[in-house]
């Protein structure tokens, strides 16, 4: 028994309890709060350590060797922390909704925790899929649009994610076959890793497998051009689902690339054609989606598209593959998760109170709801990448990480990409500030009225904003958890 098993099981058990009739809000809040404490406890325990900790394995199949193996290193703990924080916030902010909101939030969160804290490829994959079902159902059933539209949106997301998962599965299977070595197939990540260290594959083959994994993981993370599910899905999804999926679950693809693809295929991402393809795709995310976001006329569109756009930076970190860049990518994953969850959470409240999110109908909300405005500003400026909030630390590490092997006068494709990507930072300021300006600045629009949330309703958002601030000012808090080289 490992504490991680408890962490994974708690939300799922709470969901079961609610289904069996336990009071939804109390049960889910209790479970997530305990979970947060547990994750913080593991973080403290892990502080300064390296390698996998809290490992425990329960074999479930001999050959191919599958086991329910848990274990966490810094990345897992950071993402688990992200999950529990967002989950607590998402659940806390649910207000006057049917029980299924709590259940699905718990399932999505529990699935994400499972994916981040297990070390067997089989379960990593499985838990992610588990979390996708409630996402799909919630968008289709409780999305914020006409039934026909939201169902179409849910389908689009599901088909993309489903096909992406299958491609991913193919890639994972390929990995397992290549790296299982001698006589037995194994899904154990550690075993595969040691095999990969002993007998690395030829670069050309690494590149092929990496590319398959990239497509699979990529479509889960809305890598351009497999992104068109994301924006409508987030814009339509019920608030907790939008928070949890865009904040947490989406990070799974990136986690997989960092955790599975890169260690096993260290040269895969650097073979020229793969790298160029990846760079083109992530530039698509940053530049094209940046422009698309600029074009957005509603807050939900802006946030949803920006969430797609920001993935490009994390991919940039993965493309660089240097230690600094990868750690930056992890920090940015954390940061983006918190900030986008914060924004989606606030957006949900706005939608409830105002009934519209169109910029040309909004204005001057800062006068009515100052606390709300401050919270939103945290999200906005975090998205923009303002120093002092976590996103900046991640982005700057990614950029720096791309320049660690810079030879004066010779720019590689990677470095040119960074420069183009930097322009995306400008674009994100453009659309976020435009949004902020249209919503909060100016004179209050007639007929729209919004008040600050009650203090108890503010707590989840304050918690997220505070996280952004604390880890933004002290990113070494996160870095210290990632002492082991990636």
């Amino acid at each position, binding site marked *: 028994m490992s504490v991680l098993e408890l962490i994974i099981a708690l939300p799922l058990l709470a969901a079961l309890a609610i289904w069996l009739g336990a009071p939804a809000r109390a049960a889910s809040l209790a479970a997530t709060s305990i979970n947060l404490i547990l994750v913080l406890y593991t973080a403290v325990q892990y502080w300064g350590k390296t390698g996998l900790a809290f490992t425990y394995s329960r074999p479930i*199949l001999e050959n*191919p060797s599958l086991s329910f193996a848990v274990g966490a290193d810094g990345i897992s703990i950071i993402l688990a922390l992200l999950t529990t924080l967002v989950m607590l916030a998402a659940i806390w902010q649910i207000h006057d909704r049917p029980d299924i909101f709590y259940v699905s939030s718990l399932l999505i969160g529990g699935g994400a925790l499972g994916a981040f804290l297990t070390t067997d490829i*089989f379960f990593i994959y499985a838990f992610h899929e588990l979390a996708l*079902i409630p996402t799909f159902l919630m968008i289709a059933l409780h999305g914020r649009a006409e039934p026909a539209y939201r169902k179409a949106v849910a389908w689009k997301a599901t088909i993309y994610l489903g096909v992406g998962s299958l491609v991913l599965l193919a890639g994972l299977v390929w990995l397992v076959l290549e790296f*299982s070595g001698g006589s037995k*197939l194994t899904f154990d990540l550690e075993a595969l890793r040691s095999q990969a260290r002993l007998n690395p594959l030829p670069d050309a083959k690494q590149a092929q497998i990496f590319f398959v994994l990239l497509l699979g993981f990529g479509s889960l993370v809305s890598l351009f051009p497999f992104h068109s599910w994301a924006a409508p899905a987030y814009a339509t999804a019920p608030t907790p689902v939008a928070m949890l999926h865009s904040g947490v679950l989406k990070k799974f693809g990136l986690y997989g690339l960092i955790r599975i693809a890169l260690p096993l295929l260290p040269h895969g991402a650097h073979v020229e054609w793969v790298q160029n393809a990846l760079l083109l795709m992530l530039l698509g995310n940053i530049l094209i989606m940046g422009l698309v976001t600029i074009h957005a006329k509603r807050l939900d569109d802006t946030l949803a598209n920006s969430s797609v756009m920001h993935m490009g930076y994390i991919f940039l970190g993965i493309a660089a593959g240097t230690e600094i860049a990868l750690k930056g990518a992890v920090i940015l994953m954390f940061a983006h998760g918190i900030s986008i969850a914060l924004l989606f959470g606030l957006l949900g409240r706005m939608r409830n109170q105002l009934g519209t999110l169109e910029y040309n109908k909004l204005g001057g909300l800062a006068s009515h709801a100052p606390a709300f405005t401050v919270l939103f500003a945290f999200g906005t400026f975090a998205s923009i990448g303002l120093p002092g909030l976590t996103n900046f630390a991640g982005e700057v590490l990614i950029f720096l990480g791309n320049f660690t092997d810079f030879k004066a006068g010779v720019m590689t494709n990677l470095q040119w990409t960074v420069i183009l990507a930097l322009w995306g930072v400008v674009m994100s300021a453009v659309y976020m500030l435009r949004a902020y300006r249209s919503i909060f600045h100016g004179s209050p629009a007639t007929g729209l009225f919004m008040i600050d949330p009650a203090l108890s309703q503010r707590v989840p958002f304050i918690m997220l904003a505070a996280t952004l601030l604390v880890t933004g000012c002290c990113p070494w808090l996160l870095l210290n958890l990632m002492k082991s080289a990636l």
Partner: protein
Amino acid sequence: MSVFTIEAGLALLGLALLLLEAFKPDISRRTLGLTAIAGTTLALVLFIFAPHDTASLPGFIQPWHQLDSLAIFYKGFALVITILVLWLTLECAPYLTRFTVDGKLAEMFSLPLIVCAGMMWMASARDLVTVFVSLELVTVSFYVLVAFARKSAFSLEAGVKYLILGALSTGVLVYGIAWIYGATGTMSFDGIAKALANPATSKTTALFGAAVLLCGLGFKVAAAPFHMWVPDVYQGAPTPVTAFLSVGSKAAGFVVLTRALDAFMVEGSIIGSEIQALLLVIGSLTALLGSLPAMFQASVKRLLAYSSISHAGYLLLALACRESARFDLSSGGVVAFYLATYLPMTVLGFLGLGLMRANGLGEDIKDFTGLAKRNPLLALLMTISFASLAGLPLTAGFLGKLFVFLGLADHGYWGALSCAVIAAAAGFYYYFKTILAMYTTEGTDVPALTFSVPAKAVAGALALVILILGVYPKPLQKVLTSDRPAVVAK
């Protein structure tokens, strides 16, 4: 008590029940059904404790029957599905009787026992004659069962279609047997394998025989392009019979197919590689032809029929991937594993359908609307069943698919793997369409559904099996770990 005695006893019990009904017409169907269930359960218990080796069989049967792990597994499988089908028949009786003559169901309880015995014999057959006679016993029984609710136009139509196409396939099968016999001079699988490993055997003749034989067997397992009877017959047949067909009959077909392929693809076989290629083509085609039309089905029962075709495709692909040295679940094992996982999820699906019919509902997707509100438990169980059919991780269905994919990738059959992946992706769509309907709340304010405690218990148990196998497949693997000699196509 030898396994054969149990099987014979089962068949005799079927006969006895028939006689009972004939001479005591006023016997309640409940008694009949429970007797049948009790008998089959007893058989299952006895079977579990019976000696599991060929030597324990009566001497006269030993040339024709074998008891390897595959046979043991399938026999158990057949008994379990029979119990479930009998029980399902009892559950569905209220509406089934509306379509049967005089509201009688007696044969619905006795014939499955005979079918079960037939399937068990098929499972251990060592030669084509045994295969033929036990297969025909099963088929003819199914002719009757499919058309049993003959007052329903659908059931009757299904019966006619199954009859004509089934007889056609029997013809093809016998013709294939004839040619295989012609090519090899023998009808026992061992002999065929030996002859095929001998380069002097005429390759063309053997190929022709094998191809025709596989066409005949392909019909039984719903392999494309011999699958087109499946949707119509599954949809038209009474739901318990459909479950029986789609699980029991198909499983039996796959056993025979496994045995035939073991012979055809024996090491050094002159036709091994062609047969393997054929399996890949047919398997891919089956997976696709099952999945693609399923996306447009309005009837869940028909949808499940298409899904069963698609699953047959994966199973065929699994058969195409002969043993991998790195893989304990050799191809027969993967097939067995897949079927073992396929049993609870399919039966659970049909069970749900049957329960809905028993509550006076239809079988269309729209009838599932709001099920989560009307009966949350049933909705959850159906969700588990469909999720597993779709191959969602942490359910049993995923592991089966995973092993198939592993096998295909291990051999580098990328084309077939792509087809399988496309089919699985389409599968996501249609299963989730149904799941979505269940949780849709808008629409009519419909009354709650109720169903009996045993129904809950059985359905819950099936769902639990799906979930447990999904996360803890080790025990099943132990059962299946093959003691059969490795056969590798070269």
